[in-house]
Each structure stands twice: as structure tokens, then as C-alpha cells.
């Protein structure tokens, strides 16, 4: 179905950002506008999600140019899920950042850039044109550069250099891949490329192009040999920004990978073997990286890498059931990862440090907060009936069925190490008696006004409730993931919806 509504969430964020420009330096007004804008955008995304589920694919040919010539926007189930997750996380982090960030950062346009970042993410999820996707990626990375560097101290600058360099390199590789793809197919529309790439006789060139895409997206999503910028960058910015980065930015790379490797390229034996090796190494290195770290933020940064391995594993197994697990894991991971980063921010406010050897007594001092944190940690580990359990068990099942035992071992080791480090964080930071007495100067959380405390805690509780609902109501989420997986396995539906079915 063709509808203009598909652009509404993107335009809403752009509109909010532009309105924010008129209130430069007015902190309170900016906070209110941002929350209102985020809420409206969330409702629009919810509506888009509903429409996509009830009416099937939504498409829009911009400017009325027919499909292979103009830019297409398309929302299928996978896009709609990603859009809804982005809206949910942006709403939560938007509320959280009103209290957690200091005033000078908000004065220098934090919310303005934040909304452009979300706009870029939504655009990347909804576009059906490979070059347009590149442009949205650039919108996202430029915004993320600014969020990462503004107000930077020395440590943040060090991380930012690596982050900026690697992301610019990833963009160049992505652009190179687009150039080669354009050279061999002569089109940029994803659906049209998918049609024409089957006619290309030089299969070697097609494989090389697909691997160029994999490297470009792999840098962005931090897979095995390309991940090293992430742990040195993600622990430096304020926790609200890290929550958006950790939850959504790496997943944007995964989404692009899924789109490219389900619609355009059908991975052959060589590619799948390569992915399999990379998935196992990503799982293992990410997991091992967490073990000797003491800062919660650093542990979480490595856990992002580790859990990207699960998503790549879903791509490796490449069956419909594996895609069900993959989509479900994506839903779970976006929500929980953003939430743990926000929790680490609250811990930093409570104790001035996130070094687990110097933390302690959180359970005694903040029992209710600790309960919510425990719920989120358990969900990250994958304790049934919380949200992490279901996709993991599906992935285990599927890799067992395909007799890919190395991958299975990797998945289990990664899962076990996640359990180990999360339990370590719990016992050191929450359970242990604090090594030094907690004085009033250390606790920056208690002096917050009631509304400030609500703004800090409510998003965490909200996202924790969502992961609880996903876990308890797993059946309907598996149905949703099945719908997305069904469509991912059948690219011809996507192609027909963009180009119009051939009668």
C-alpha cells in the first residue's frame, strides 16, 4: 500500500529538532519540547507499526517517480519493528537525559542533535534505496560524532578519534561497495538490484561486493576483527548518550547487514563459513574482554560486542527459525542494552564511580532500584521467563539441528560468561558491603528533586517492564518475529511490493 504516512516519524523528529533551534540556551523549554516531540513521534511510530502489521508492506515512491528511478521508502515487518524500538528507546533516553545530563551540555544543543540522530536512524530503517541508506548513515554518524565529542575531556577525545576514524573508514568502504554494485547492476534501488544481480555472470565479483558491504557494516556493528574502536569509545560519553549508542547504533549496522544479505545477496557456502568463523570469534573475544574489566561501563561495552555475535549467528544459520531467533534477539537486545547503560549512569550518580571494586552496599541503600536492576541483569543473561531466554534457546536449537557445534559452543560460552560477569557486577556492586563509608558528598542522587528522580528512574522501570512483558508474553513476540522472518526468507515479496508485481 502506498502512503505518505511512512515519512511522518522522520519528519516529526526533524520538526522537533528545528523547533529546538529557536530555544537555544533555554534549558527547561528544550526539555519540554523534546519530551513532547519524542512522545508524539512514539505514537506515530506505533501507528506505523500497526499499519504495517495490519496492511502489509507500506511503500512510498518519493516525488511520484516510479520505483527503480526515484527513491523508495518501504516499511516491512522488520523495519516496523526497528522503528518502534528506536522510538521506544529514544523516548526513554530522552526523558532520562533531561535529568542525567548537566545544564551546559543541554545548552549547547544536545537535544537538537539527539533528534537529528533519531531521525537518521528512522530514515536508515525505512529507506529502500542503497545510496539513500548511505546518506542516512552519514546523518547518524555526524550526529553521533557531535554527541560524542561536545564538552569533551581528554579521555573522551581519545575515544572520539578512534570512533570518528573507524566510522569514516566504514563509510568509505560502504561507498566503495555501492560504487561496485552500481557498476555491475546499474541501479540503486534495493529491490531492483536484487532482480538484476541474479543475471550477473561474474559471481566472484558479486561475492567480493557482498563482503565489502559486510566489512562496512561490520565496522559499524563491531564484529570480530573490526570491533576495537567500540570499547575505547563507548565508555567515555555520558550514560544517556552511551545508552542510545549501545542500544541502537550497532544494531543499525546489523539491520543493514540483514537487509543486504536477505534481499540483495543470497549468502553462499563460502560467505556463510566466513560469517560462522566471525560469529564465533566475536562471541568469544567479546566475552573474554569482559572478564578482566573492573569498570561497569567497560564490561557493558564488551558485552555489546559479545551479543552482536548472537545476531551474526542468526545470519549464519540462515533458516527461517534462525531469523525468528535473530529478530527476537534484536528486540530484546536493543531494549536491555539501552537500559543497562542507563542503570550504570544512575550508579555513577549514586556513588561517583562505576569501578566495581570501589562500589558496594547498593542493595542495602537502594533496595527498590536494585530490584529493577536485577530484573534487567537477569534479562540480559537470559534467565527464563525474561526476554533474553527465548531467542537464545531458539538459536541453540537451530545450531544443534544444523550440527554447527563450534557455533553452538561459542553461543554457550558467551552466554555463560555473560552470566559470570553480570553476577560479578551484582555481587560486587550491589551485594558487597561498600569498602569505604558512603558520605553525602559522594551521593549525587539523593539531592535530586522528586521530578529529577522520576526522570532518572522511570525510563529504567519502563524499559524493564517492557522486557518483562516480552518475556512473559513471548508467544506473541515469537509470532511477530515469525512474520518478520517469513518476509526475510522471501525477498520476492519485498521486490514485488517495491516494483509492482509483474502480471
Amino acid at each position, binding site marked *: 500500500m502506498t502512503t505518505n504516512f511512512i515519512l511522518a516519524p522522520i519528519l516529526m523528529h526533524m520538526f522537533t529538532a528545528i523547533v529546538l533551534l529557536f530555544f537555544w540556551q533555554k534549558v527547561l523549554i528544550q526539555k519540554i519540547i523534546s519530551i513532547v516531540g519524542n512522545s508524539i513521534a512514539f505514537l506515530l511510530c506505533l501507528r506505523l507499526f500497526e499499519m504495517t502489521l495490519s496492511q502489509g508492506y507500506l511503500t512510498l515512491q518519493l516525488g511520484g517517480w516510479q520505483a527503480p528511478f526515484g527513491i523508495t521508502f518501504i516499511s516491512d515487518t522488520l523495519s516496523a519493528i526497528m522503528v518502534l524500538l528506536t522510538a521506544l528507546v529514544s523516548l526513554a533516553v530522552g526523558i532520562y537525559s533531561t535529568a542525567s545530563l548537566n545544564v551546559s551540555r543541554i545548552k549547547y544543543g544536545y537535544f537538537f542533535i539527539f533528534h537529528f540522530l533519531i531521525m537518521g536512524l528512522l530514515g536508515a530503517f525505512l529507506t529502500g534505496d542503497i545510496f539513500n541508506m548511505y546518506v542516512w548513515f*552519514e546523518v547518524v554518524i555526524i550526529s553521533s560524532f557531535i554527541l560524542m565529542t561536545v564538552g569533551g575531556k581528554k579521555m573522551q577525545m581519545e*575515544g572520539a578519534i578512534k570512533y570518528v576514524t573507524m566510522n569514516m573508514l566504514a563509510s568509505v568502504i560502504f561507498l566503495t561497495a*555501492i560504487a561496485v554494485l552500481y*557498476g555491475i547492476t546499474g541501479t540503486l534501488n534495493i529491490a531492483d538490484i536484487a532482480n538484476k544481480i541474479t543475471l550477473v555472470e561474474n559471481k566472484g565479483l558479486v561475492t567480493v561486493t557482498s563482503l565489502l558491504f559486510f566489512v562496512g557494516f561490520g565496522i559499524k556493528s563491531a564484529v570480530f576483527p573490526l570491533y576495537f574502536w567500540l570499547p575505547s569509545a563507548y565508555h567515555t560519553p555520558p550514560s544517556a548518550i552511551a545508552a542510545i549508542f549501545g542500544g541502537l547504533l550497532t544494531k543499525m549496522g546489523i539491520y543493514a547487514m540483514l537487509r543486504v544479505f536477505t534481499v540483495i545477496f543470497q549468502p553462499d557456502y563460502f560467505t556463510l563459513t566466513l560469517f560462522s568463523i566471525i560469529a564465533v570469534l566475536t562471541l568469544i573475544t567479546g566475552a573474554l574482554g569482559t572478564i578482566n574489566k573492573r569498570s561497569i561501563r567497560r564490561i557493558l561495552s564488551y558485552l555489546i560486542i559479545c551479543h552482536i555475535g548472537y545476531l551474526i549467528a542468526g545470519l549464519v544459520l540462515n533458516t527461517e527459525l534462525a531469523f525468528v531467533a535473530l529478530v527476537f534477539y534484536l528486540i530484546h537486545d536493543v531494549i536491555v542494552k539501552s537500559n543497562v547503560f542507563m542503570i550504570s549512569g544512575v550508579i555513577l550518580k549514586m556513588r561517583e564511580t562505576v569501578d566495581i571494586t570501589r562500589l558496594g552496599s547498593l542493595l542495602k541503600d537502594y533496595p527498590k532500584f536494585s530490584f529493577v536492576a536485577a530484573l534487567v541483569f537477569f534479562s540480559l543473561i537470559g534467565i527464563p521467563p525474561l526476554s533474553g531466554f527465548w531467542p537464545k534457546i531458539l538459536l541453540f536449537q537451530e545450531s544443534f539441528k544444523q550440527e554447527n557445534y563450534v557455533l553452538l559452543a561459542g553461543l554457550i560460552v558467551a552466554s555463560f560468561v555473560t552470566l559470570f560477569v553480570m553476577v560479578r557486577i551484582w555481587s560486587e556492586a550491589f551485594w558487597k558491603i561498600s569498602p569505604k563509608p558512603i558520605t553525602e558528598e559522594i551521593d549525587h542522587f539523593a539531592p535530586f528533586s522528586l521530578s529529577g528522580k522520576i526522570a532518572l528512574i522511570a525510563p529504567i522501570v519502563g524499559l524493564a517492564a517492557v522486557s518483562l512483558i516480552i518475556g512473559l508474553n513471548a508467544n506473541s513476540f515469537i509470532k511477530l518475529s515469525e512474520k518478520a522472518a517469513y518476509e526475510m526468507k522471501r525477498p520476492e515479496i519485498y521486490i514485488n511490493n517495491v516494483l509492482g508485481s509483474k502480471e
Partner: protein
Amino acid sequence: MELLLVILVGAFYSAGIYMMFRRSMVKLLMGLLLLGNGANILIFLMGGLTKGKAPIIRPENSKFLEVYADPVPQALILTAIVISFALTAFAIVLLKRVYTTTGSDDLDSLNIQDLDI
């Protein structure tokens, strides 16, 4: 002409990657610039080179009858140039900031925070 451009693209990419491996931040920036320009020329080359033909339909015809230059790669390059221009401007400011906060142009001196855990 194609061969010349192929060699040029190769030179741009290899020089860019070589510069990125250097320790100086300015050379890193140069490397990124060279890579970006290499990619632009690659797009230009992959669109196919057609000499002296414009993508214009004559009024008496209703479609293209002869070979024409593909306008899409040029539009792509234009977009890519604008984006890389913005990114470069940002990167220069960032490097300047890093230089003022750390007082060094050496990338190896930026690994201090990776040592602590």
C-alpha cells in the same frame, strides 16, 4: 582513459590506507580525504565513461536512441563530496581540539585510557 582512472583509483586507495597507518593525526586526516576521493572517482568510473554525449532526449524522439552519459554517478558523487566536505570540516576541528587538550600530534600517545581497566 578507463585504464588511467583505474590506476588513479588504486593509487588513491593505497595512498589513503598508507597514510592512515601513520602516527601523525594530520596524516590520518589526509588518508581519509584520499580514500574519500578515491571512492568518488570509483563511482564515476563504475558508471561507465561516455565521451561528449549528454543525457538529453531530442524533441523529435520520445526516448534515448544513442549512447548517453549516465547522470546518476555524477549526482552520487556530488552528494558524497558534500558529505565528505562536512565530515572533513568536523574532523579538522576535532583534531585541533585533541591537539589543544593533549598537546601532541602523535596517535600513539592517545592510548592511555585503554591501559586501565
